[in-house]
């Protein structure tokens, strides 16, 4: 018995190719061409200029600031993400839904608002400013938050904190907690249970979350822009790119493309990492299933 007659089969095939073409064209125009133009533009004045543009004092400083902010953001958010997902999946308490929603706020709120919120908190007029001043006076330190590196770090942490927990929570929910319960019943302590039972389940999701978090932290503009005003000191790469571009001379525009290409390369490396991990995950689970 035939389910589709020939006409229907042909129509089905046609739909398939039309959809593939649409997706491919969309990706080419929206993604591939712009990215290629970044690379092409960055090389317009030659390789020598390209490397010169990357080695100016402003750019190296921005690279360092970006890496510091990313490192802190990933470290803090990995820890926070694991703790939050553990709390959300393993305990029942009032306000759990509220907590879960709060974690998602950075996804839905404009990063600029986050930056401004930090200014209103830690800035000269903010409610936390007297506390910081008090700390500085008592300890003889000179801690600055806004318009300084800590502000940049805080803003980056803020915009990237949902990534890790968003990846882990679904995994923990599917796995359930009876393995943990079984281990606890045999007398295993909390840390041992996490290390031996829970961690193997979530490690790939965690890695994926960390990679997404890294990518976002590297590219953050809005929140950092509100809190970072000193070029060469607290600027991150995206801010430096913006500054170069806005200065308007033909050379600096080419330089801004050169710096952009740096971020593109980092992004590509991150994506390659991601795919390697994904491939390894699939291989690993295949191995466990097929019995090698």
């Amino acid at each position, binding site marked *: 018995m035939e389910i589709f007659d020939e006409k229907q089969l042909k129509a089905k095939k046609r739909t398939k190719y039309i959809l593939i073409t649409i997706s491919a064209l969309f990706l080419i125009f929206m993604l591939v061409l712009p990215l290629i133009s970044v690379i092409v533009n960055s090389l317009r004045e030659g390789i020598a200029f390209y490397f010169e543009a990357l080695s100016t004092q402003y750019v190296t400083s921005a690279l360092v600031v970006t890496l510091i902010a990313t490192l802190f953001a990933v470290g803090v958010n990995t820890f926070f993400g694991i703790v939050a997902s553990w709390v959300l999946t393993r305990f029942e308490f009032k306000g759990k839904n509220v907590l879960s929603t709060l974690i998602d706020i950075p996804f839905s709120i404009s990063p600029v608002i986050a930056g401004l919120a930090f200014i209103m908190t830690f800035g000269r007029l903010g409610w936390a400013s007297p506390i910081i001043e008090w700390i500085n006076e008592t300890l003889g330190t000179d801690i600055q938050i806004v318009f300084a590196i800590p502000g940049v770090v805080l803003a980056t942490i803020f915009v990237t904190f949902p990534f890790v927990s968003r990846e882990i929570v679904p995994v923990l929910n599917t796995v359930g907690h009876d393995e943990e319960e079984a*281990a606890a*019943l045999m*007398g295993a302590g909390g840390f041992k249970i996490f290390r031996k039972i829970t961690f193997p389940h979530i490690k790939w999701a965690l890695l994926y979350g960390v990679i997404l978090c890294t990518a976002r932290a590297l590219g953050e503009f809005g929140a950092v822009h509100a809190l970072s005003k000193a070029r060469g000191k607290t600027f991150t790469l995206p801010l430096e790119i913006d500054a170069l571009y806005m200065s308007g001379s033909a050379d600096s525009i080419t330089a801004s493309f050169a710096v952009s290409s740096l971020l593109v390369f980092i992004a590509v490396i991150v994506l390659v990492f991601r795919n390697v991990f994904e491939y390894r995950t699939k291989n690993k689970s295949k191995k466990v299933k097929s019995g090698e």
Partner: protein
Amino acid sequence: MYVEIKNINKHYGNFKATDNASFGIEKGKLVALLGPSGSGKTTILRMIAGLENPDEGEILIDGKVVNNIPASKRGIGFVFQSYALFRYMTVYDNVAFGLEIQKVPKDKIRERVLELIELVGLKGMEKRYPNQLSGGQRQRVAFARALAPNPTLLLLDEPFAAIDAKVRAELRTWLADMIHKVGITSIFVTHDQDEAVDVADDIIVTNKGRIEQHGTPREIYESPKTPFVAEFIGTSAKYENFGVLKGFSKEEKVHGALIRPEFVEVFKADNANIEPYLKYADDGVVESVTFRGNSVELGIDVKGLKLTALRSLERRKIEVGEKVKVLVYRLYTYDGDQVKIIENAELAGKETVKL
């Protein structure tokens, strides 16, 4: 009594999961907690294990109150419903886990683990991961893992629920043999009466958080103490107007009766052998004939009562619409919480040979 629970109450919000439950279990017995889903049997098991705490009442193991002793110190082996094997560990590591936690020396662990793996018949599969095993093999691993730290009490939560019907019967016999071989006191939870009757030394029937009856499978089956047990065990139907049957009369306070198919005998009207009993038999009309594999199930209308009877395939065929003679040997009457077995008064003192 090795395990004893005394007046246990447990609430989840407004839901009463356990309602003043008390029972005792002798050492070395294999006991089934049997009840429909939501009857509180798993809650009781989890409270004995220490995975849940009772609101009121005491739990004793080996004469000691264990309410305040953490689960891991109660000397319990637990087999979870879905086995909860550690998916990222091999069979060997699964079984060894509890011993490693207790910091048993490596060579001792190895000895014990291999001994258990051999006991459950999984020799050579030490290096496999749980998802490379069949359902039955997984259950064997779960059993070995629970036994590894030498518990004095084994608790099993619906141990056969995740296994397909064909393997289930085989596996439960295996498990019962194994438990008796090891000699460990065991309690298992099930909603399947066949399973409980087949495997358990004693059955505790639960309903709505209460203990309905505690006895051997035979006692539970033959002399149910509450209407719930009478109805839950076996397949029976309720009849309010059972007084119309020959040999039975309905007393005022009795609400009705339960009749099981095995209490009902059906004869073809032309059966010469039943002459002596003919006057005690009721007339009935066959309304349905259903093939049940090893027997035929008959639906018969007797004076307005829709009775069910089983008939051997070896006997003469009965057709739908056929007029037959029906004899009811006994039934369970119930009023409120009381159940009584009533034998057919006409047959009292006579030898009833099943024909």
